[in-house]
């Protein structure tokens, strides 16, 4: 049975048959197509990762050769560097505030636009615009001015400038991120449009109201998209740099309250020339992002619903 199932020419094809020659040529062609990517993956990704892991166990200032110090960078980071912990807490606070705020805005606006017949394309583009402009230095400078003493927010609410108040300054950074909710909104909107209308009709026949339909149809059907957005935005949020840099005028102040992780990494590596220490910081960041992503994937089993699961 098993022997007859295998076509005779595939069983022991002679090496020089025209078929395998084409196959080999195609394999060769594949590597030609891949060559830029392979070169980049080795020289600009794998090698640098290995080198930065090595450097994280050394003292290195770019000029004299790296000096092996074992785990000292890591122990110093975890036990003797209050600014490091400050930057960790700042970054975590920022992630926990900015990401849910951004995704909530994205979801609410997507739901509002979903059933719209007129003006949907216009709103979609208009709400999306900040996502393209928001990462720029120009907008970060606007943010600094608007939230500074005498800026719009100060004048409107009489709170004084947020930029100079610890805690509030970080909120200004988070608001700049939340302002760019257009990108996840577009993805939510596309996800909402893929939910079959029959599900809502069936729910309505069963007597489900708007709220019930949202909870029992929209939320589960949208959960894969929500999960995708959550992972993507969380990973990005951990690497925030430009807005914190611009809003604090490059200093991470006031009182280090906007000194996010990447800013402190930049400070240690490129301002203070402690490349070994900065490499150790980069590897901890990599590990933390890896762990957070893994945790998100693990918890997703209990709340992300894949409609096609039954088919598999």
């Amino acid at each position, binding site marked *: 049975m098993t022997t007859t199932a295998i076509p005779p020419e595939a069983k022991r094809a002679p090496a020089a048959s025209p078929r395998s020659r084409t196959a080999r040529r195609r394999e060769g062609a594949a590597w030609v197509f891949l060559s830029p990517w392979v070169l980049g993956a080795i020289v600009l990704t794998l090698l640098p990762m290995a080198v930065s892991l090595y450097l994280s166990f050394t003292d290195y200032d770019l000029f004299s050769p790296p000096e092996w110090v074992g785990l000292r960078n890591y122990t110093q980071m975890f036990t003797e560097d209050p600014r490091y912990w400050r930057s960790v807490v700042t970054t975590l606070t920022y992630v926990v505030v900015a990401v849910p705020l951004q995704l909530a805005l994205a979801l609410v606006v997507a739901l509002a636009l979903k059933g719209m017949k007129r003006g949907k394309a216009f709103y979609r583009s208009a709400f999306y615009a900040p996502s393209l402009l928001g990462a720029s230095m120009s*907008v970060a400078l606007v943010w600094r001015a608007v939230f500074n003493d005498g800026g719009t927010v100060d004048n409107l609410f009489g709170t004084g400038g947020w930029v100079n108040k610890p805690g509030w300054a970080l909120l200004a950074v988070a608001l700049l991120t939340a302002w760019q909710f257009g990108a996840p909104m577009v993805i939510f909107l596309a996800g909402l449009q893929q939910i079959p209308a029959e599900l809502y009709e069936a729910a309505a026949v069963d007597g489900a109201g708007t709220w019930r339909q949202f909870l029992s149809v929209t939320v589960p059907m949208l959960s894969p998209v929500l999960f995708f957005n959550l992972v993507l935005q969380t990973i990005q949020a951990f690497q925030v740099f430009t807005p914190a840099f611009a809003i604090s005028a490059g200093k991470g102040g006031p009182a280090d309250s906007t000194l996010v992780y990447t800013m402190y990494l930049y400070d240690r590596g490129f301002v203070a020339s402690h490349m070994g220490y900065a490499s150790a910081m980069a590897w901890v960041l*990599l590990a933390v992002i890896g762990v957070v992503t893994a945790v998100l994937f693990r918890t997703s089993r209990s709340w992300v619903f894949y409609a096609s699961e039954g088919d598999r």
Partner: protein
Amino acid sequence: MTSTAVSRKPLGRGRIAVHLGCLAALLVMLYPLAWLLATSLKPADEVVASLDLLPGHLEWSNYRTALDGVNDVSVWRLLGNSLLIAGGAVVGNVLSCSLAAYAFARLRFRLRGPLFAFMIATIMLPHHAVLIPQYIIFNQLGLVNTYWPLILPKFLATEAFFVFLIVQFMRGLPRELEEAARIDGCGPFRSFFRVVLPLTRPALITTAIFTFIWTWNDFFTQLIYLFDQDKFTLTLALRSFVDASSTSAFGPMFAMSVIALLPIVLFFLAFQRFLVEGMASSGVKG
């Protein structure tokens, strides 16, 4: 039409409320941009003294001052530098990412599965994990303070996100066209350039637009690699305004900010339909 209109009569008011809510949200959202435009045209004495959004009179000289640039480097020079980097990045990404994507989407080779998984994993890799050794490599090669570290990586398909985006698109193309090309005697290279690449245009345009905008907005990489004033980009030149504490320079500073945003706005207006759809399909399929 009529039946839904009848059954959803109370929704008429609801729909108006949704529109009003969206418009109100839009006003708040677009305020910072309006503020930017208004401030770029305000005379120095009005920036702080007046709370009005609109300038009392339009101070076009802010733009003339902005065109002089920063530290004797004219805005045209800065704009040219920014365009050179962004343009190089676009060409590099479109070329290298489509090449790699074709191999992953259509060709068979050993280790295809593991390499594809590795490529996907690098999408999530934080840039900072490779930043310092990359800097050291470029430093050893004497390429720091040149544009090579900013452009060369794009020619090596390091932005895996775009490889993935193009792979997804190519997988949706009908195989029959390539089969036909092969029967007509086209090798993999000819069928890539003649058949597949033209069909992949939408994904390539999406790649080009996002590469342009992300490179244009990029600050961190430029900050660490470029030192000379005359090699600065618009973003780096704006950064030197950051420390300025006085508001007297606000007009010219924000005039320059507007100039720096113009290329993105033009790109957005020209391609926005394309862009939003490309973004949505890549996201949902992912």
